[in-house]
């Protein structure tokens, strides 16, 4: 607890990642059309099948209406008023870490992301994505020794086309939803991970996404495949500069766990949330889905959502394999004018599948937050179990917290349990802290950290510290 207070205290200012890196970049012409897609594909030297796939997605996208069901409101997006490709100018792309543009390196250092392998304290391998391209991936040699493939997705298209072709779009098809379809058409980079059978990935893998350029959207695509009996823990972080405009971020993440494999996916999402009046900020429209294809496989999502003007995100698990397990741990914090509509889907198809959902939502200021989840027990999901717990904490009388769970059970031996509560920080708790000389804001951070503990505990150590800090910062200015 002490550390939580310390960290909250040690941080000043609201959004400290709001700077812009001045770097020359190469962009595609503004707007979205087949030409843009051909440009991106050509830039990346992609094979014909991938270009075809992109174009099919684009044509389908044109026929799709904007999704309207989420409880968020924003003016219609002008898809033509944005750049779909922006990359720092380089000659050939860095051959080694030393060749990475020093300006870029400094950016990541400022963000606290080390790209020097020797300076790493603990073993975390990083893939750094800057606007549309991956600029550096660390610890590749060590990982390769174990047979682990960890590279940017553009690289994987060249080096492992059979894996990419087999799995990309198999969990999130290009027809899935408006935002995912757009991503399929224009995705620029992202991370590819393949863990061979029986391998326990020796270190945490991490991707750090940074939006820098003005007027650009970021569309990354992540594909993680854990082969039979393997294990991987993957972390994702993201930041963006402070700007008055709204930038679109529409990512797709696909996870595939084969027999007895386990994937742990953690996110700390800290895109620029906009200012107190709701100007600017990122539209974070993300499709994340994992398929537990094999028996006894497991996919665990942990997310800390503190940034973005609008969050629209439902990391889900399709539990196909018998005895497979899906987990979703989430903390979502909205302050000022932020809006978040987030939750999960647990689709139980296999026998004796299990899922657990713990969602903690905190709403302050004029923010609006919705938990939207689906638990579906298919007719063959004998003995399946789900437990869902969603708690909301409201700070102040002008914010909103909503819970919209969908529960569908078609198997009598399946058990579904859902609980939800909404409350505020009790005056008693605050009084207790204040009486002991703890300032009100710190007391709130303390109570909130306690409220979120169950989820914070799920995070890998490196992230837990950062997440605790974020909880404090995000709520700054919400009391008193």
């Amino acid at each position, binding site marked *: 607890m002490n550390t939580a207070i310390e960290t909250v205290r040690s941080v000043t200012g609201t959004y400290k990642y709001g700077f812009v890196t001045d770097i020359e970049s190469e962009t595609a012409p503004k707007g979205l059309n087949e030409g843009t897609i051909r440009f991106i594909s050509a830039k990346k030297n992609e094979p014909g099948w991938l270009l075809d796939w992109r174009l099919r997605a684009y044509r389908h996208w044109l026929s799709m209406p904007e999704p309207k*069901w989420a409880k968020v409101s924003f003016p219609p997006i002008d898809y033509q008023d944005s750049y779909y490709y922006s990359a720092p100018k380089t000659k050939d792309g860095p051959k080694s870490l030393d060749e990475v543009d020093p300006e870029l390196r400094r950016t990541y250092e400022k963000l606290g992301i080390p790209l020097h392998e020797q300076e790493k304290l603990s073993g975390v391998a990083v893939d750094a994505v800057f606007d549309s391209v991956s600029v550096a991936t660390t610890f590749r040699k060590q990982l390769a020794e174990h047979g682990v493939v960890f590279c940017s997705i553009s690289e994987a298209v060249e080096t492992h086309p059979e894996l990419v072709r087999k799995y990309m779009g198999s969990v999130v098809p290009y027809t899935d939803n408006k935002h995912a379809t757009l991503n399929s058409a224009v995705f620029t980079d992202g991370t590819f991970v393949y863990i061979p059978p029986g391998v326990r990935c020796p270190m945490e893998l991490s991707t750090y996404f940074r939006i820098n350029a003005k007027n650009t959207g970021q569309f990354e695509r992540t594909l993680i495949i854990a082969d039979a009996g393997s294990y991987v823990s993957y972390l994702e972080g993201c930041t963006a500069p402070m700007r008055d405009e709204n930038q679109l971020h529409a990512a797709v993440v696909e996870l595939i766990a084969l027999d007895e494999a386990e994937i742990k996916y953690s996110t700390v999402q800290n895109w620029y949330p906009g200012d107190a009046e709701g100007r600017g900020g990122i539209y974070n429209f993300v499709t994340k889905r994992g398929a537990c294809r094999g028996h006894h496989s497991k996919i665990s999502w942990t997310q800390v959502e503190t940034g973005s003007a609008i969050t629209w995100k439902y990391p889900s698990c399709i539990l196909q394999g018998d005895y497979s397990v899906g987990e979703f741990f989430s903390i979502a914090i909205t302050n000022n004018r932020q809006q978040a509509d987030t939750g999960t889907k647990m689709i139980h198809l296999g026998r004796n599948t299990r899922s657990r959902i713990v969602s903690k939502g905190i709403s302050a200021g004029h923010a609006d937050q919705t938990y939207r989840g689906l638990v579906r*027990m298919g*007719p063959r999901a004998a003995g399946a179990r789900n437990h869902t717990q969603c708690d*909301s904490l*409201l*700070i*102040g*009388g*002008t*914010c*909103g*917290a*909503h*819970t*919209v*769970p*969908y*529960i*569908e*059970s*078609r*198997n*009598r*031996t*399946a*058990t*579904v*349990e*859902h*609980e*939800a*509560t*909404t*409350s*505020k920080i009790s005056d008693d708790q605050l009084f207790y802290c204040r009486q002991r000389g703890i300032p009100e804001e710190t007391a709130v951070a303390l109570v909130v950290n306690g409220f979120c503990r169950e989820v914070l505990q799920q995070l890998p150590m490196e992230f837990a510290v950062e997440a605790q800090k974020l909880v404090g910062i995000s709520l700054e200015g919400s009391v008193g």
Partner: protein
Amino acid sequence: MNSMIGATATGVPSWLRSHEDAQARLPGADRPWLCERRAEALAAFAASGLPTRRNEAWKYTDLKALGSVPLMPAVTMPEPATACPVPTVLADDDVAARLVFVDGRVRPDLSHSRDLPAGVVFADLTAGLSRHEALLEHCLGHRNGITGRSLLALNTAFMDGGFMLRVPRGVRIAKPIEIDRLSGQARGSDGAPLAHHPRIIVWIEDGAEATVLENWAGGGDAVYFNNAVADVWVGNAARLRHYRLQDEGAAAFHVTTLRAEVGRDGDYETFSFSTGARLSRLDADIGLAGTGAHVGFGGVFMMRGRQHCDTTSVIDHHVPHTACREVFKGVIDGNARGVFQGRLVVHPGADKTDGQQSCRTLLLSDGAEIDAKPELEIYADDVKCSHGATAGQLDDNALFFLRARGIDERTARRLLIEAFLADALDQISLPALRTRLTERVEEWMRDRREEHE
């Protein structure tokens, strides 16, 4: 996409045609204000058609089957009502008044209002129209809300029966008022199934008290459609206990749109017991409009075969210090399907709201299905709100406990199911009804057993 094209067309032309046929025979056909209201509602219905699954509120309930039935408005039937025995719930001596309908027609021989205190208005809609027209006009005008609610619009356009009850300020009616509706006895010309659109108006003035029991029964396998709308006002410090028994015929469609508003320190207790109909839906919209208002909203549904039962509700807490308890229990057997959609809304400023909601369902067979969507929508911070939903089968441990004590499996299961439903039935504060419904549960279990043998 196809369903959308179907949606705008679903039933609309045939409803418009049948409205032309029925127009002259609808109650109040000579009252311009009512005709105007009907025309307006019909236009609203024509614009939207029957709701489809693309409408989020109808995600789990498909009215396609209803759209394909060639229904005929019941008013086009010749008088009088069929003379047949009508099942009732409470004995004649135990009710203050009774109103009996068979196929939408009043049966004066079975109806009475012998124990009603002076000043209470209780009449079927046609009689109410001739004797209390101003009151009816006031009530119908006070709450319109037909936009986007096509079944409500349809009811207003065709409104052909039902009743109105107004209890004046401070008057307490000790005994319940029972309304029995038996449907499915007659058929229209060419054997066409009948459509009824009863309108129920209940107005409990400040400090008054009443108990209303609606008994919806249907004999046999006749297809028919009951599209009811109930408008309820519970005044300041008034109290209404409102029970609904839905035991419609096996091929019937039943939809009730219930709208209620509860005033300061008012208490509204409503309980629905559903065992009948091929497809039924309760669409409740309850507003807590005065501080200290309390709502008890509960129900039990027991479904089997290919039955479909939907309970959809929105409870609005508009002001501070209001409370709501919502408890539903369901038992689903065969290939039946249960739907529970409950939304609890706490509006800005409605601090100190205490809202609790729970829906628990037992699935007894492999084909049974439950879809639940308990929603919280909260815009105030000083509130205590929770909801819970569960679905599953009987607890093996509990079963084992009983088996270990020499109780055979069938009895053990029956005991557990009855116990499961008992705490929902306990919400009913009318002992005679509670007993009657407990018996009904046992009866249902007996029928189920026979079916399985």
